[in-house]
């Protein structure tokens, strides 16, 4: 794969043309910058307000924390007087397990669906496509019933299972598309080398899927980390709460501890940011360069 996205050697023929180029670049950057600001603004708001006293939050929500208004009470409340560690741990376990299994199962399913011809191949592919189109939340009642019968309510297993089902269709779709771009000679060379089909998948195909898997990981991870719906329904117990659910204890019917809410949200950003950085490092293009000419 020759990724030459950035290699647009423009002929520098005239000044007006260069001017137009600059103008275009400016416009693009302006749009992107605006979007970035809009997207980051709420997060910034959470960050600065988590460091302010309760009164300051209401008096001047947009103001930066000053010496007078600086207050770390929220963090104290969250870290010392709640089970934040447990919630964060639950969230991490659920997210990592679910993402890991989605990647593994998704890659295997995608490989089987694209590489082998078997009865029901098309039907399976169709069912996965349906999974992308129909939101899993429509099946919440049935899922809850199922989990009750399996005695999985209030366990992290329930969440992991549901999230795998939620993430798998898109993973299979993206990875199948990517697997199709891997030259078939590679698999054939491996077969001539006497490598078993399993080994071909794990030793030849999987390493080449890394960029696509990183994309899938990011797409899968964020909704799982942020989900409130399934933890609330399937695992609201004290022991199995995830971070998003844990934050809710500070939101009361009459009083909301805004300091604690904002502090825990701030802290909740950190792990997912770290995970994102890990995956995005894998988003390297041109990994197959040199395989075939």
């Amino acid at each position, binding site marked *: 794969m020759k990724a030459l996205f950035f290699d647009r050697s423009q002929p520098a023929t005239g000044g007006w043309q260069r001017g137009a180029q600059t103008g275009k670049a400016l416009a693009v950057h302006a749009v992107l910058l605006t979007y970035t600001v809009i997207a980051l603004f709420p997060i910034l708001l959470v960050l600065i307000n988590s460091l302010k006293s309760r009164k300051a939050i209401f008096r001047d929500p947009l103001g930066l924390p000053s010496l007078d208004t600086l207050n770390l009470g929220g963090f104290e409340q969250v870290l010392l007087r709640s089970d934040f560690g447990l919630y964060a741990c639950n969230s991490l376990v659920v997210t990592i397990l679910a993402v890991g299994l989605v990647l593994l199962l998704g890659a295997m399913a995608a490989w089987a669906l694209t590489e082998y011809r078997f009865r029901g191949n098309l039907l399976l592919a169709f069912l996965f496509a349906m999974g992308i189109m129909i939101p899993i939340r429509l099946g919440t009642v049935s899922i809850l019933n199922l989990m009750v019968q399996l005695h999985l309510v209030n366990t992290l297993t329930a969440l992991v299972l549901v999230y795998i089902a939620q993430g798998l269709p898109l993973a299979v779709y993206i990875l199948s598309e990517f697997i199709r771009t891997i*030259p078939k*000679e*590679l698999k*054939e*060379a*491996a*077969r*001539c*080398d*006497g*490598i*078993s089909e399993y*080994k071909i998948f794990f*030793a*030849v195909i999987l*390493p*080449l899927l890394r960029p696509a898997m990183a994309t899938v990981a990011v797409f899968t991870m964020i909704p799982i980390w942020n989900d409130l719906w399934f933890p609330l329904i399937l695992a609201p117990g004290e022991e199995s709460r995830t971070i998003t659910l844990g934050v809710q204890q500070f939101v009361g019917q009459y009083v909301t501890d805004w300091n604690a809410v904002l502090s825990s949200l701030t802290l909740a950003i950190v792990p997912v940011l770290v995970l994102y950085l890990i995956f995005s490092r894998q988003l390297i293009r*041109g*990994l*197959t*360069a*040199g*395989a*075939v*000419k």
Partner: protein
Amino acid sequence: MAKVQLKNLQKRFNDVKVLHGIDLDIQHGEFVVLVGESGCGKSTLLRLLAGLEEISDGELLIDDVVVNHQPPAKRGIAMVFQSYALYPHMSVFKNMAFGLKIAGASKADMQKKVEEAARKLKIDHLLHRLPRELSGGQRQRVAIGRAIVRDPKVFLFDEPLSNLDASLRVQTRVELGKLHQELGATIVYVTHDQVEAMTLGDKIVVMNGGRIEQCGAPLSLYHHPKTLFVAQFIGSPKMNVLAGQVQQASATGVSVMLECGVLAEVAVDGSQLQSGDPVSLGIRPEHLSLGTELPTCFAGEVTLTEELGEATYVYTSNGAGQDLVLKVDGHEEIAVHSQIRFGFKAGMAHLFDKDGMALPRLLKS
């Protein structure tokens, strides 16, 4: 080293028949080249040998064992692909050792074999690089090295030089020839380049439309093509073909009235022919020479010359369907649009009947 036998090998894709029963015997250590135009089934045949495609009918034997249903690795073959197909995430060493590792070879054994093959191919200084850091020629060597270390009974090459630039292609071609002599391996080689076929092959198999058109030593194909297709396929620029009618035929020679109005004398056994039969006369560019004293003589206007230094290709036309190419000495000075006269000796031409089958030539030895 092994001998390979193909008995009535057939391949169908759904209802489309691609190979119509191929019979071929390949001896120990023989270098067999499959040539033909694209889509003639030569690559498919190679993939059948490799085990990458299922054989629809017929038998394939390697060392007298039927291997129709054996997977590629069990057949003892190694294949070198046109696109090299190196594992992009593995170093050159790992690429070459991968098959051995899977087969359970010891580390010392692996090291020894890979280094030996690398030395043979002069890539021993590249063992720790990744494929993307290599040039096309180096990648090709790694692909060949990967085949060598497995010590296969039969090497299969699928147009291995097509992706290289011209000078590298010539160089690699020479090295492949040397390698074959050194290894003494049985090789089946697919190419569409007839120079590669002529220079490398002990035996050339010319394929056309899923059938073997002719099979034999390079020079026998050149001198005694069985069909018009083979005659035109072997040789560059390709053989000139002129349509005509038999005027007089005997076992010692045939005279043909060509459509361009020239009476040609051809030294072939014409005892099968009747006068009036339509025939095609074939004459290679290198067998046409300038002059007026020859038994068969043409006149034409030069439309183009290609000067290669050692020789010049002259394209001529007489405006009446007679377009001929001749190869003359590089010292001759021939101007475009000039009128020239040229011809051939009776023993140099080929004659084909209306079905494109060659008549036996009467060559003086």
